[in-house]
């Protein structure tokens, strides 16, 4: 033994190291990462930015033109003459247009309300029972080409001997809106802590109470976001509506299409602008309510 007990000073660092020789030289942590980061920065800067700008321009420039020309004081859309509210005034006094707007709103309200209830249930079922087939069935309508959906619904309604009109459009819209609601609600549920429901049960809540008092309040933002999305999808829909509409049940998108067949008038620009604003507003609210679901979740 090298040191007697008792008179021994606190061990100095060298002796400590001698007892525990460190494996020499330690690999420098983070060096690899830094290199990667640098490369990323170079790539990140110009190319991506330009591509992003170009893409946005391509997407939004036509929309900007529509908005700008809706204020053009000229009967033909080709040339800028001066500013006017005239076309919005024309819209307000166009009885057919008003009827179409009314149809669109009614359909969107009913379809989104029904789809919200059914879609919420579907979303909860998708979350609760981790089945393979159910999510597929619920999400598939989003992937199927709209024209196919439209044609098949038309055939279906004809087979049922149904008169085409507001009801058939509503049914069609409900069928595709359910998917949107279900997806948003499920992603909201997935973000919810499962032990909360168990905690509620543990503290004396029945299954129904724990749903009403805990689950529901926590998924409400998701349900609302789903409802708004459904509303927008319904009010904007053209293809499916085209196949399932009757003579007396023109909606705004159908009306716009009919008008365009004659000429792109500033009035079309005006109604398009309004439709665009509504859509933009609703989607913005929805994305605030359910940020995760909207980010491609």
């Amino acid at each position, binding site marked *: *033994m*090298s*040191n*007697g*007990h*008792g*008179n*021994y*000073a*606190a*061990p100095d660092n060298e002796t*400590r190291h001698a*007892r525990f020789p460190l494996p020499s030289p330690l690999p420098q942590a983070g060096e690899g990462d830094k290199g990667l980061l640098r490369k990323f920065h170079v790539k990140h800067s110009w190319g991506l930015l330009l591509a992003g700008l170009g893409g946005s321009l391509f997407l939004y420039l036509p929309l900007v033109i529509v908005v700008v020309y809706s204020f053009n004081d000229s009967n033909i859309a080709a040339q800028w003459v001066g500013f006017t509210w005239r076309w919005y005034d024309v819209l307000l006094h166009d009885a057919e247009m008003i009827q179409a707007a009314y149809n669109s709103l009614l359909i969107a309200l009913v379809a989104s309300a029904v789809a919200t209830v059914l879609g919420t249930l579907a979303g909860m079922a998708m979350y609760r029972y981790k089945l393979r087939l159910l999510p597929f069935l619920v999400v598939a309508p989003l992937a199927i080409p709209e024209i196919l959906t439209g044609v098949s619904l038309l055939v279906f309604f004809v087979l049922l001997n149904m008169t085409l009109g507001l009801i058939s459009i509503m049914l069609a819209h409900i069928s595709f809106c359910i998917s949107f609601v279900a997806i948003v609600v499920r992603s909201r549920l997935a973000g919810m*802590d499962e*032990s*909360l429901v*168990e*905690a*509620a*049960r*543990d*503290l*004396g*809540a*029945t299954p129904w*109470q724990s749903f009403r*008092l*805990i689950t529901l*309040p*926590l998924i409400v933002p998701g349900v609302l976001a789903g409802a708004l999305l459904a509303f927008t999808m319904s009010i904007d829909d053209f293809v499916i509506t085209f196949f399932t509409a009757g003579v007396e049940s023109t909606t705004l998108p159908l009306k716009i299409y009919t008008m365009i067949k004659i000429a792109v008038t500033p009035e079309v620009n005006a109604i398009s602008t309004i439709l665009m604003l509504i859509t933009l507003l609703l989607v913005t609210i929805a994305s605030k309510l359910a940020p995760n679901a909207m980010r491609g979740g």
Partner: protein
Amino acid sequence: MALLEIQNVTRRFGNFEAVHDVGLEVEAGEFFTLLGPSGCGKTTLLRMIAGFDAPDAGRIFLNGQDLVATPPEKRPLHTIFQNYALFPHLTVADNIAFPMRMAKLGERAIAEKVKQILDEVRLSEMGGRYPADLSGGQKQRVAIARALVDRPHLLLLDEPLAALDLKLREQMQIELINLQREVGITFIYVTHDQGEALALSHRIAVMDAGKVMQVGRPEDIYEFPANRFVADFIGVCNLLEASVTAAEPDALTLDIPPLGKVGAYSPQSLPVGRHGVLALRPEKVRIDSQIVAAPQENHFSGTVRALIYMGDITMYHVEITCDGASGLTIKALLPNSQARGASFFEVGDRVEIAWRYDAGRFVYE
């Protein structure tokens, strides 16, 4: 009659048995701990007691009543979840009021009880806050308040301190002990931290791979491990492969291969030839540069191969090198109790070690 009786409970997930034929009895007023490594089935067992999961076989009785058909909301017990599971959209006061609202108490009585328990857990000012605005320790106390406010018969706690830092954890341990003593409610506490289990519990059930390996008071489990797993899992232990060469009343002679004959002690009489391990705690092994062996002591000399300085104590790994025998390493522990800093044996020093016959525990499967 015990408060909680678990009889032959088994739970399978597919072919895998997460809990295997577990039998336990927990007395009223006990602080009872389920201790075991990760994945040994502690949470699964707790969930069956709470009613979130049902056993595939066996029965669970609370106050003599079979629980298996009772839904969680009807069981007179509460769970404290590892992440506290506070309802994020309710204030602290509404969280605590939740169980009483479910029991349809009057709002007046509820408000009074909420205020009282908030005082007790020193959160009087926090009633209007939301859980997101609380610190980890405060959330913990809200969860405890919510679970205790309607005086359940039994409280289940699943690693409630695991998410807290060391200082706060030690403080909460003391609070939990005091709380349990004051309210007198039976606790079943789950942890994989053996230090926590020893410090808190009246009794501990050590689990491994879905089975209960030993049930006993902390000191029994530590001093008299029933098998190799418990000896190894609780604290640090020398496990020396041994077989019985002679067994007289109380006295046992073991053969431990490189060492030869070693004196030991056993309360039971064992057949000669029985194989097992001698479980020997490092703090029961004397170490010094020279030892005069006392009667009833095993005595060996060896060489220090490693030492681990842990602040309060130093653990020495001593390789026995006597009579040409070598290869067996025994851990011995010295407290660093000198007033002016630690004094060490160095790696390579010759030392002597000794332990009493009854210091070790011979365990066999």
